[in-house]
């Protein structure tokens, strides 16, 4: 471990006069074989929203649990209001006004919202006055500004994830908590729900609560927090930095350190440089309700990423390709041959391997040895009555040598290995079958950063050997550094297929914006195009390249030369002059008489959201730029801006 970055560990700005309400220093915590916290520090100032930022496995959740009494620390100290705090249980923490809203909610599913909010009261002796509880609950929801969203007599199991979270928050308020820790609260929320949560958090802050917001999503940290503390590998690498003074790149560097750079970023593998053979192709795949229209191809030796938001249908897409879900429509080709999997075994025999998202639930057979776990894919592919393990013996020995797995541990229990090694064993399960295509769903989920790097290089070696690799990941940073090309899926539709060298996190986020908001914006653009009898589009521009999010063309004469998902060079479009100039004026192309007006779009927080453009056929008389802008701006009020 390197020494702490002096600049990063700098103290909060001098203007923060108030003393921290809670100070955690040098916290250590080990689980069994893993050191989760190795000297974590945290200061929480009264009335602030503190962002606790870090990659997966950095120790954010563990530290939060230590502070909220869910875990006891091994070493280190915590002081609350200048008095030492030694919590033995979460119940005790509640007594001090500290509550944690967990990733997986701890609600009683068969009880009503009201009963859950006052669960602690149910344990008290004596009679309950439901009427009084109800009044108090309404008061709390009112304070959150969420009176309408949460019916008090509804059973909790009928609620959405976002509503359950609200119940948890209400529960914390019912206990008079002053410090509320939110552990990755946005993980399973849709963008509008995130917005609502942020509203709730703002209300809480306004009413004097202190909040800790645990996350690995930078945009959210920028949106909601006052200060940020960054963790990496169980340590605090930056404490209480002023959010306003931070830059995204700086935070990323703090979060991941230098390690991520050891993966050569998205350079084509050797196998990919040779003439490209198509190893896999999917055309217009659908599997209701999550997958609606997905097409993409994978070449030999190529790592293709499937990007998008949680719930966009990426996992469902790969599960359908692998035969785990029924396929309604679409065609699948592997090695040039069509295949129609009715079961996973069909896909395996066709030459596909699939590493599922949840290793514990979908990967490991816990009662099997490492050897039998490795041979599970073989067992599925085999048509024999017997085991036929011996036919894989040579390849198996070769593989475990590459994994650095001692042969004598082959017959031990799988659960004795680290998460990273377990994941590598599951990947090796498919490599054993020498597949043409290897699909991995969130391959580094729950894997620490060090092992992550070694999984990346393993995947690159696999691709080097000529296998087509598909990686599903919600981590845009990971997709951008690992994959050569990214297929963006939004609301079950593949909407873009872009070389990752052309992308960055912002562009990917805009592409991945859910269709619901995209759909409305598309409708606005269609209305504009229709109204003006031309073309209307929304695009990002980066140097001399264009990223078209949507294009509506009503008049073929006014076609700007690109469509949704296209990423052409500006010079290859039909309106290069307008796109390269990007002025306030209506620009007329010399070559084809197309007149284009571009309007810049900024999000509510001032982020650059690209350009809305209108192209008209200049051979008929054009309106003036002012007239045109006036007509368009009426429509633009309806534009939904992704966060």
């Amino acid at each position: 471990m390197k020494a702490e970055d002096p600049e990063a560990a700098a103290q909060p700005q001098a203007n923060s006069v108030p003393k921290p309400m809670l100070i955690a220093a040098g916290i250590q915590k080990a689980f069994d074989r893993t050191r989760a916290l190795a000297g974590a520090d945290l200061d929480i100032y009264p009335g602030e929203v503190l962002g606790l930022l870090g990659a997966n496995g950095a120790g954010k959740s563990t530290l939060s649990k230590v502070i909220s009494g869910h875990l006891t620390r091994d070493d280190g100290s915590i002081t609350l209001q200048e008095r030492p705090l030694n919590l033995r249980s979460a119940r005790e923490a509640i007594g001090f006004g500290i509550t944690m809203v967990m990733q997986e909610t701890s609600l009683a599913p068969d009880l009503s919202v009201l009963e859950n909010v006052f669960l602690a009261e149910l344990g008290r002796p004596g009679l309950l006055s439901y009427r009084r509880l109800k009044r108090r609950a309404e008061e709390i929801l009112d304070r959150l500004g969420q009176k309408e969203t949460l019916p008090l007599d509804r059973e909790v199991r009928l609620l959405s994830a976002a509503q359950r979270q609200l119940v948890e928050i209400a529960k914390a308020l019912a206990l008079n908590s002053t410090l509320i820790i939110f552990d990755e609260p946005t993980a399973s929320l849709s963008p509008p729900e995130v917005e609502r949560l942020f509203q709730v958090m703002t209300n809480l802050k306004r009413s004097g609560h202190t909040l800790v917001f645990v996350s690995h999503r930078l945009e959210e940290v920028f949106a909601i927090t006052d200060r940020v503390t960054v963790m990496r590998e169980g340590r605090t690498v930056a404490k209480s930095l002023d959010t306003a003074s931070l830059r995204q790149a700086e935070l990323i560097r703090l979060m991941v350190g230098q390690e991520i750079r050891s993966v050569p970023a998205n350079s084509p593998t050797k196998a990919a440089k040779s003439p490209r053979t198509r190893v896999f192709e999917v055309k217009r795949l659908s599997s209701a309700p999550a997958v609606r229209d997905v097409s993409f191809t994978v070449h030999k030796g190529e790592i293709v990423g499937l990007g998008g938001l949680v719930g966009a249908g990426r996992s469902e897409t790969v599960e359908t390709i692998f035969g785990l879900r029924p396929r309604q429509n679409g065609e699948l080709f592997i090695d040039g041959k069509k295949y129609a999997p009715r079961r996973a075994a069909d896909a395996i025999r066709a030459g596909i391997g699939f590493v599922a998202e949840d290793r514990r639930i979908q990967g490991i057979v816990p009662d099997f040895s490492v050897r039998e776990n490795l041979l599970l894919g073989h067992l599925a592919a085999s048509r024999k009555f017997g085991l036929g393990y011996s036919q894989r013996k040579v390849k198996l020995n070769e593989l475990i040598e590459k994994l650095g797995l001692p042969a004598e541990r082959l017959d031990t229990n799988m659960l004795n290995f680290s998460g990273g090694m377990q994941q590598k064993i599951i990947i090796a399960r498919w490599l054993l079958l020498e597949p043409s295509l290897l699909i991995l769903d969130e391959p580094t989920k729950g894997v620490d950063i060090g092992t992550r790097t070694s999984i990346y290089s393993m995947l690159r070696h696999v691709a080097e050997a000529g296998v087509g690799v598909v990686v599903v990941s919600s981590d845009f940073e990971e997709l951008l550094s690992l994959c050569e090309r990214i297929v963006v899926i939004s609301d079950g539709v593949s909407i873009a297929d872009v070389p990752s060298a052309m992308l960055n996190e912002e562009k990917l986020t805009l592409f991945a914006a859910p269709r619901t908001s995209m759909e409305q914006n598309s409708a606005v653009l269609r209305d504009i195009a229709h109204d003006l009898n031309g073309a209307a589009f929304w695009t990002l521009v980066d140097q001399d390249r264009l990223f078209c999010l949507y294009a509506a063309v009503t008049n073929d004469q006014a076609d700007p030369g690109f469509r949704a998902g296209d990423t052409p060079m500006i010079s290859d479009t039909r309106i290069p002059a307008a796109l390269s100039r990007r002025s306030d004026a209506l620009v007329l192309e010399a070559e084809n008489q197309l007149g284009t007006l571009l309007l810049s779009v900024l999000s509510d927080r001032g982020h650059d959201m690209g350009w809305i453009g209108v192209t008209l056929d200049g051979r008929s008389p054009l309106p003036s730029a002012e007239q045109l802008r006036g007509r368009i701006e009426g429509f633009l009020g309806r534009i939904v801006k992704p966060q």
Partner: protein
Amino acid sequence: MKTERINPINAERSLVSDLVGRLEIRMLALALALGAALSILSPHFLTSNNLLNVLDQSVVVGIVAIGMTFVILIGGIDLSVGSVAGLTGVLLGRGLEHSVIPVAIVLAVLAGMTIGLFSGFLVARFGLPAFVVTLGVMAIGRSLAYIFSGATAIADLPENFGNIVYTSIFGVPAHVLTLLVLYALAWAYLNFTKGGRTVYAIGSNREAARTAGLNVLTFSILPYVISGGLSAVAITFASAQVMSIDPLAGTGLELDAIAAVVIGGASLYGGRGSIVGTLIGVLIMVMIRNGLNLLNVSPFWQGSAIGAVIITAVLIERLLSSRAFSR
């Protein structure tokens, strides 16, 4: 990355020695200790006659316990084995009135397998709880057994029907030999075939088995089919032993079979257990019964003794396994 991973040496024990060392060997030791104790307590225990007697009494529950092992290995349970035995017994009796012995037996076994297919399909295809489905089949089976038998025992069986029990091959009665052959087949199947390992994988982690491409549906149904078929085989021998078929036959058999499997070290959550363990479990149960008879203990005490053994076996297993597998 400096997070330390400590792998204690004792975690390196191989899984094979784990299973054998922990499970069957321990149970075998218990069986031998029990045998030794009984032979000291009673001079009649360690006679070849009595040992054959123990095996003779093991046949019915032993055969049913094979099917029960398969079902429990996939994490299921089959409460219907006793009444399926009763029903297929009655069908066997009716069959013997109309056709030759081998045909009647084959038909009875097919009937048992069909009932198993029914239960297994409901459980595996629709995800119904095995406990509830087989409880329902248990009630239906017994009811049909009464209806088809007219609620009376069928006693006029063909004379040579008894030969399936009383024929000896190399001095071993045919039914005991059948028991051992069935155990050998089940052992080979579970350990050395794709289907057998699939059964274990399903019991250990159904979702992982499905995701890895194993045929989960087929091999979730198969155990119930085996269980139903073996119930019919068991009642065939039981009927030949007493040369009579009673619609009540097999009552409580499911509990003995489950007990044998559990004493043999299988986990009711599935994925863990072995056919050798089950055989030892059967022998332990039968030896306790036999020993208590020899010692002239009231038969009313037998239930208490067996119940105590079951609870002790499971308790020991839990205490040991919570140390070995901290998960």
